[in-house]
């Protein structure tokens, strides 16, 4: 055991703090909203007044964070040479690059829409806590997108999920809300524990927690005898995939999805389906590509088929199960929950395409495009689900009957979003699916693994999914108006619907407007940071190399039980 050297403090520079300013603002604003509620408003004002003021304060904070995040993208604000992949920024824990700068704008944009939707109804007495937790879950989400290191990733992921557990259970007087929260917590923490056990093995096999360094160590282990554990690396891979599979609601880990989507307050459901899924998929792509890229196919060091094959099977099963289960649903929120499982399947096809494609950045751009447009479409449809739940007092698809005649604007927007979710040509959902499936097909053409069967399954599933979406469309336009249609739409719902529908049509007619910047983000998302210590005697933490290299030969033993050199010792 070498003595622990003193680490010279590497305090982040001002431009690094500036880069994090949207996140820091949101973390601070959560405290501010909570304090405003506890110290000023609670017990002095009516619940509706309190809710209005806290909602407005939160909206201002979220818009300010969005402004800061957009400002960071402005040419010249951050020098382009600063925005390069480098392990020196934040000591290599947070990606300081173009992808983070762009994707955090999308994440905060989702937050703004969710806050706007939450202000429409008062469904909880704990208004201060509600908005504070929304902010903090957004903080976790964005740090998760930006994480370049397993500890940061794990803590950010838990910040996001634990906040969302509480948000799920916050609806006052709702039995289903508490039940959904407890189920979410039990499934979620079990999945986190699986994920963490996998991470501990990855750490043990490579000796580091940084994504890029893990990737380098695993590449070396293919040639250097010893470090690549046999079945342990397969086990680690499966456990990591289980953790991500839970977060994105893919099939063997999907059981929580319908109950949580149905029981949670509808704005929170919209947040889980858009924000949480967005962040989880990006973190998944980063971990699989930067750190575990070597394990994409069986390398002989891995007693497992590799994550490309595993994820292809999960994708096919998720799509099929989600769509078939959605067919039988009468409950609008539950139908959307099963359709979200199916969409996770489509997105997994995209992730697999990134893994095998020769044009990885294009494939990444396609997945990011799908994530953005799918998030917007889900926010819009859940806005309608929220209106049904709170103003009509029901969850059934039949209660949408005849909406197209009485409320033409919201019904038309909802119809556009549903058509986009099916994948009808001029809309964004079509281009997202087309781009991802094209990348999956191209990968097979270049001598990679043929994904044709997967694309065929995905296309068949798109046809199946049309049946249940069209059932909603039929209710909107072909049935006689029911009694619930007299209710008017609050402005928060209209705004969310119109923004989502306009974006869906706009990005559908002009996909390059979104695809070009996201393709650029894909490049920097997949660029491994260069080791900061190259060519220097002192590494990024200022520790001399000799201090970290163990002197005791016992420490250089292979850390894996069945490895031959360990038994030889």
């Amino acid at each position, binding site marked *: 055991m070498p003595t622990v050297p003193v680490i010279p403090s590497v305090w982040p520079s001002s431009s690094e703090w500036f880069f994090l300013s949207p996140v820091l603002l949101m973390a601070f604003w959560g405290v501010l909203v909570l304090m405003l509620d506890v110290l000023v408003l609670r017990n002095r004002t009516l619940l509706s007044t309190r809710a209005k003021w806290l909602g407005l304060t939160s909206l201002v904070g979220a818009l300010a964070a969005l402004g800061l995040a957009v400002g960071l993208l402005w040419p010249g604000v951050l020098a382009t040479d600063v925005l390069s992949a480098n392990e020196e920024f934040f000591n290599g824990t947070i990606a300081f690059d173009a992808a983070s700068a762009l994707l955090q704008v999308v994440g905060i944009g989702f937050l703004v829409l969710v806050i706007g939707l939450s202000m429409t109804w008062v469904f909880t007495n704990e208004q201060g806590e509600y908005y504070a937790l929304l902010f903090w879950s957004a903080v976790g989400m964005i740090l998760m997108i930006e994480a370049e290191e397993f500890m940061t990733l794990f803590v950010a992921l838990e910040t996001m999920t634990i906040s969302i557990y509480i948000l799920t259970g916050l609806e006052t007087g709702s039995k289903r809300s508490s039940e959904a929260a407890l189920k979410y917590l*039990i499934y979620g923490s079990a999945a986190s524990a699986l994920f963490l056990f996998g991470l501990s093995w990855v750490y*043990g096999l490579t000796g580091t927690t940084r994504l890029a360094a893990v990737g380098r160590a695993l590449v070396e282990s293919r040639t250097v005898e010893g470090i690549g554990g046999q079945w342990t690396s397969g086990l680690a891979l499966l456990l990591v995939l289980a953790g991500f599979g839970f977060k994105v609601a893919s099939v063997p880990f999907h059981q929580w999805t319908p109950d949580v989507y149905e029981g949670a307050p509808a704005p929170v459901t919209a947040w889980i389906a858009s924000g949480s899924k967005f962040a989880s998929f990006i973190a998944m792509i980063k971990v699989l590509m930067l750190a575990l890229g070597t394990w994409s196919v069986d390398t002989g060091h891995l007693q497992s088929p590799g994550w490309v094959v595993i994820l292809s099977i999960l994708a096919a099963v998720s799509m099929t199960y989600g769509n078939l289960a959605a067919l039988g649903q009468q409950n609008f929120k539950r139908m959307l929950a099963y359709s979200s499982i199916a969409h996770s399947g489509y997105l997994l096809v995209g992730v697999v395409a990134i893994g095998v494609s020769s044009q990885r950045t294009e494939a990444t751009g396609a997945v990011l495009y799908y994530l953005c447009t799918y998030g917007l479409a889900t926010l819009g449809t859940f806005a309608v689900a929220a209106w049904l739940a709170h103003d009509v007092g029901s969850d059934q698809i039949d209660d949408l009957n005849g909406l197209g005649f009485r409320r033409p604007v919201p019904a038309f927007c909802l119809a556009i979003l549903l058509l986009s979710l099916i994948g009808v040509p001029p809309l964004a959902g079509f281009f997202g699916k087309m781009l991802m499936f094209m990348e999956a097909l191209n990968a097979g053409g270049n001598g990679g693994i043929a994904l044709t069967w997967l694309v065929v399954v995905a296309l068949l599933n798109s046809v199946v999914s049309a049946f249940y979406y069209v059932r909603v469309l039929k209710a909107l336009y072909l049935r006689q108006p029911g009694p619930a249609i007299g209710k008017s739409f609050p402005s928060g719902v209209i705004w969310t619907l119109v923004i989502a529908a306009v974006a869906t049509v706009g990005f559908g007619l002009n996909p390059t407007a979104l695809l070009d910047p996201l393709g650029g983000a894909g490049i920097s998302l997949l660029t491994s940071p260069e080791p900061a210590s190259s060519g220097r005697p002192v590494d990024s933490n200022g520790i001399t190399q000799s201090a970290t290299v163990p002197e005791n030969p016992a420490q250089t033993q292979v850390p894996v039980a069945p490895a031959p050199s360990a038994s030889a010792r």
Partner: protein
Amino acid sequence: MSQDVPLNWYLIVAACVFVIGLFGVMTRRNPIAVLMSIELMLNASNLNILAFWRLGTPNPGEAPLTGVVFTALVIAVAAAEVAVGIALILVCYRVWKSADVDRYDSMLG
């Protein structure tokens, strides 16, 4: 160093604790017992990380305290998770007057 417990022993104990925790999560019906099982799984990971940090091969250029910091963060996260978990169990207990996950079934289908 040669008198130390070998790394493999730690890993075997951690794997056993993890499997016991996983078994508990899947079989116990009392939510508090489920939370305890999840704690076992998290602590198995902690044991793994610390054993790897103390006895494994560090990556060149790795900071000296990675494993300890990781474990401290995991302990903090686990405490937060349990605090939220107990609160939610209390809420559900007040509604159903029972601590049995199988009876929390207002949503099916």
